[in-house]
């Protein structure tokens, strides 16, 4: 069963194109300098339309998660973590943590993580995260 995938909109296309091209692209306000997520055409902090897209570090820490023991059919048959990472640039982002067991012992809050793009189709790669050395 094919994984449920996002359908980009004009306001989010730069993000998904970035993922396809191996770059985690965030937006920041050129007036108040706030970095924000999810994408939109203006700054949610000060409402300025003067915003820019930039390549973020792709690094952050594991902020919170649950381990889903009733997998969605397109996600396989084993329990998996539905996680939120806090990016070094500030925003939080939902994701999955890959490259480690899906257990409370392996998934320790505040551990450093880095992005790993996993190709799903020619257009869509998902920004997943894996444990990183601090």
């Amino acid at each position: 069963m094919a994984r449920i995938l996002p359908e980009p909109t004009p306001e989010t296309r730069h993000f998904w194109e970035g993922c396809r091209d191996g770059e985690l692209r965030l937006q920041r306000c050129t007036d108040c300098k706030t970095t924000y997520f999810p994408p939109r055409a203006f700054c949610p902090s000060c409402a300025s339309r003067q915003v820019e897209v930039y390549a973020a570090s792709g690094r952050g820490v594991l902020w919170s998660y649950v381990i889903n023991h009733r997998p969605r059919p397109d996600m396989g048959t084993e329990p998996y973590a539905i996680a939120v990472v806090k990016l070094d640039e500030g925003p939080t982002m939902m994701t999955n943590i890959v490259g480690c067991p899906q257990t409370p012992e392996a998934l320790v809050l505040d551990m450093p993580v880095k992005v790993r793009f996993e190709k799903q189709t020619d257009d869509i790669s998902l920004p997943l995260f894996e444990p990183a050395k601090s």
Partner: protein
Amino acid sequence: MKQNSVAVVGAAETTKMGKIPDVSVIGLHADAALNAMADAGLKPSDIDGVATAGISPVELAHYLGIKPTYADGTSVGGCSFMLHVRHAAAAINAGLAKTILITHGESGRSRVGAGGFGRAPSSLMGQFEMPYGVTSPPTMFTVPVLRYMKTYGVTEEDLANVAVVQREWAALNPRASFKDPITVNDVLNSPMIAWPFRMLMCCLVTDGGGALILTSADRAKDFPQKPVYILGTGESVETPLVSQMYDFTSSTAFKISGKKAFEEAGITHADVDHLMIYDAFAHLPLYGLEDLGFCKPGEAKDFIRERNTAIGGKLPLNTNGGGLSYMHSGMYGMYALQESVRQMRGTAAAQVKDAKISIAHGVGGMFAASGTIVFTNEK
């Protein structure tokens, strides 16, 4: 809103609750509405305002043959009914309508005439949460909780204890779905749903509904039931994505809604005799107690463990057994309101003696929205 200017004069749940395979969603709305009208001694032609969520107020009005001058379709999840009460109070004061019916009905378990739970893949949730394997609320509403637990040293036992204490209340309610006593160990040994959440930390999935009828306080004294006045109200909305909450250890919407309701009511926490906090999952009473200001951040777990919210405690909480044990059709806020009204009428199964002020606090979506209603039986 103006204190005590509007009252609840009709309140009822569906005739049956739990598993109702022979009634559709709109049928549950209508059953609750007819019961509430009977409670108030009214007919559909006496109603000039309608509000509902889940279905459209258009469907509701036409199904019941009501031709209203006021319709509210605010739909922000399970606390929508708190917002409907708030808006109805304002509308009655502004002269938009005189007698407003608010209904809920949901075939949560049997799914008769019910829609699906999907999200468009181009929506924010479709793009930024669905791809990571979220399913139903147990895998979304719970996502912030590990951060809360780490911040305040909250344990799995603390979460389990919320369910244990509420089951004690449920045992006093003949209509509660689950009445048998449970222990912390029972909760911690129940099937894993989404770690750290076990089945008994998650709400029921049942069928049912409820309805309220509001009118001006001046008219309320002419109705058959003891009027329950609206003393204060609050509402707020926060985020459609749980991953984008402003703070994973606190609901901003709870704080804004609660503060506004206390201000409107002109009361302090010590004035509150009875409290309902929408408990779709075991962490919600903890967040609610703290964000409403009954406890300092991180102290709700101790407050519950010390039995302040239990039978005989100083702040009886979720006295119907809550979404964890009483019933939960999907949008539970209506049942929290119903229990507050029963407590203020003095007709609750687990009646709090001499209770004069009751608060019903609701959550919508996954920490998406909030509504708070302060009721009193004194004018």
